[in-house]
C-alpha cells in the first residue's frame, strides 16, 4: 500500500529553509503554545531582516532583542502573568524595530483569513475610528456595495491579506506526514497560520503514527492536515517556557528569570543568554532542567 510522504526533519533543517527578509508567521497566542524551539533556532542562526507576524509573547521579545526583526506585525505582545514583555518594550522604546504594524487582535485574524483564502483583503469593523488606521495609512477602507437598513453604505476596514512566506507552529501530537492535534484548551489560530503561508513547519511534543493521533483523542482535535505542512519536527518541551497544555503549563519561575534578565543590565541579559541561549536546543533543555532542579 502506498503511503503519503514522510516530512520528519530536524530543527536545523527547518531553519535551512528560511532566508533573510522572509515574512514568518509564528503560531500560538502570547505566552501560549509557541514554537519556541524553532524560535530559538532562528536566534542561533545568521538570519536577519525578518518580518515577524505574531500575536506576540516571548517569541517576539527574544527575536527583537537579538535584532532579527526588520518589521513586526502584532496586536499585542504580552506574557500574561507578567503583562508587559520587557524585550519588546525595550526594542520599541529604543527604536530598534525599524517598522511596526499594530493591528487590533480580531483584525489580525481577518488578515490571516484573507491570506488563507487567497483574497486581497477582507472587511471588518475593527480599526475604524482608532489609531490603527492612523498609524498604518497603508490600511484602507472599503465601502459596502449594499445599503444597510437605513440606506447607508457603510465604510469598513479592508484588512489586507497577511500573506506569510513561512508559518511556524507547535502542536501536541503529529504524525510524520504533518497531520496534527492540539490537546489543550484552545486551537489558537495555527490552522490559519499554516494556510496563510507558502510553507509551513510544525514542531510537536511527540510524533506518533497516524492511527495514534485519534486513538484516545476526538477527531475534532485534528486541527492541521498534512496537505498544509512541509516539515515536522519532534521537539519535546519545545514550547518552553510558554504553555503546552496538557503536556505542561507555562514555566512561571523561568519566565520570571527571563523577565528579570531582560529588564536588567546588559550584563544580566548576557548572563541569561550565556546560560540558556548559547547552545543548541539540547543544551537549552539541559540548562532548563538544571534550573528547575535548583528551584525544586
Amino acid at each position, binding site marked *: 500500500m502506498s503511503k503519503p510522504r514522510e516530512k520528519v526533519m530536524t530543527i536545523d533543517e527547518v531553519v535551512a529553509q528560511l532566508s533573510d527578509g522572509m515574512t514568518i508567521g509564528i503560531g500560538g497566542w502570547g505566552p501560549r503554545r509557541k514554537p519556541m524551539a524553532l524560535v530559538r533556532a532562528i536566534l542561533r542562526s545568521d538570519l536577519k531582516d525578518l518580518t515577524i507576524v505574531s500575536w506576540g509573547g516571548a517569541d517576539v521579545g527574544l527575536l527583537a532583542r537579538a535584532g532579527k526583526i526588520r518589521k513586526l506585525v502584532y496586536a499585542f505582545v504580552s506574557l500574561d502573568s507578567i503583562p508587559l514583555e520587557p524585550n519588546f518594550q525595550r526594542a520599541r522604546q529604543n527604536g530598534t524595530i525599524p517598522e511596526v504594524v499594530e493591528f487590533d487582535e480580531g483584525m489580525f485574524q481577518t488578515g490571516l483569513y484573507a491570506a488563507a483564502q487567497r483574497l486581497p483583503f477582507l472587511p471588518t469593523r475593527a480599526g475604524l475610528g482608532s489609531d490603527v488606521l492612523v498609524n498604518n495609512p497603508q490600511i484602507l477602507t472599503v465601502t459596502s456595495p449594499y445599503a444597510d437598513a437605513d440606506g447607508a453604505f457603510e465604510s469598513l476596514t479592508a484588512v489586507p491579506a497577511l500573506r506569510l512566506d513561512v508559518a511556524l507552529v507547535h502542536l501536541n501530537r503529529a504524525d510524520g506526514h504533518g497531520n496534527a492535534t492540539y490537546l489543550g484548551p484552545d486551537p*489558537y489560530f495555527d490552522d490559519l497560520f499554516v494556510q496563510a503561508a507558502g510553507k509551513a513547519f510544525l514542531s510537536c511534543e511527540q510524533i506518533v503514527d497516524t492511527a495514534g493521533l485519534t486513538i484516545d483523542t476526538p477527531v475534532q482535535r485534528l486541527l492541521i492536515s498534512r496537505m498544509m505542512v512541509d516539515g515536522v519536527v519532534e521537539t519535546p518541551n519545545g514550547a518552553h517556557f510558554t504553555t503546552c497544555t496538557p503536556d505542561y503549563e507555562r514555566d512561571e519561575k523561568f519566565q520570571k528569570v527571563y523577565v528579570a534578565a531582560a529588564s536588567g543590565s546588559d550584563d544580566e541579559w548576557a548572563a541569561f543568554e550565556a546560560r540558556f541561549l548559547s547552545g543548541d536546543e539540547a543544551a537549552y533543555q539541559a540548562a532548563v532542567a538544571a534550573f528547575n532542579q535548583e528551584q525544586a
Partner: protein
Amino acid sequence: MSEFTRAEVCAAAIADAFKDDGEIFASPMGMLPMLGVRLAKLTSNPDLVISDGESLFLAGTPPLFAKADVVEGWIPFRRVFDVVAYGKRHVMMGATQVDRHGNQNISAIGDFARPTRQMLGSRGAPGNTVNNRTSYWVPKHGIRVFVEQVDVVSGVGPARAKAAGPGASKYNDIHRIVSNLGVFDVHGPGDTVRLLSVHPGVSVDEVVAATGFALAVDGEVPVTREPTETELMIIRNVLDPKNLRDREVPS
C-alpha cells in the same frame, strides 16, 4: 470605620454596569471587573454568560481564580472574535489613558513611532469598541490616566466613531467608566465624559481635581450606592474570601 470598603463599592458599581445587559457574554479584564461581573451574575443579572478568561463558559459562578465546577460552553479566542462581531458581549477593559471624548489607550505612551513607554499594544480595543458594549475600569484615578487626549487611540469613543461613519458608530456603545473615585458615562456635551456619581466619602471637587480634562458635571451629583448586605456577604464569603480586592483598591 465604615462598614464597607472602597473596593466593595467599586465591585457593586461594576456589577451595576452589567445589570441591564440581559443574556450576553460578560468579559471582564482584570480582577475587580471579574469580581463585579460575578457579583452581578449572583444578584442582578443571573442570565450573564461568563468565562474562565481562557476557553470555557462557566455554568456556575466560582470565586476569583477558582477552577470551573460545571462548564456550559467553549469559547476559544477565535470564538471570542465571533461573539465580538455578533455583538452579544459587554467587555470591561483597563485603560492606561482615557480622554475627554472617551477614547482609551492601552497601546503606548508618547509618540507611537518611538514611545516613551510601550504598553501591551491595542489588543482587542479597536474591534471591541465598534462592535459591542464596552466599559472601562480605572483602579487609580488621576491626571495621568484621565487626559485631554490619549496618545494612541486603541478604544474608540463616540465622537471618533461618528466621524468614522456608520460602519464605526452603529454598534459603538461606551457604557460606563468606573474608577476608584466615581462612575462616569460619555453622554456629556459633545459626547464627552460625564460624572454620574461619586463614591461614598469622595467629593466632586476631588474627582474634578484628579481628572486632567474638563469633566462634564450635571447639577447635583449623587453618591454611588452602597453595597447591600447580600452583596457584601457574597463578595466577602463567596467570591473573594482572600480579599484580593483590597490590593487593587486600598481602603
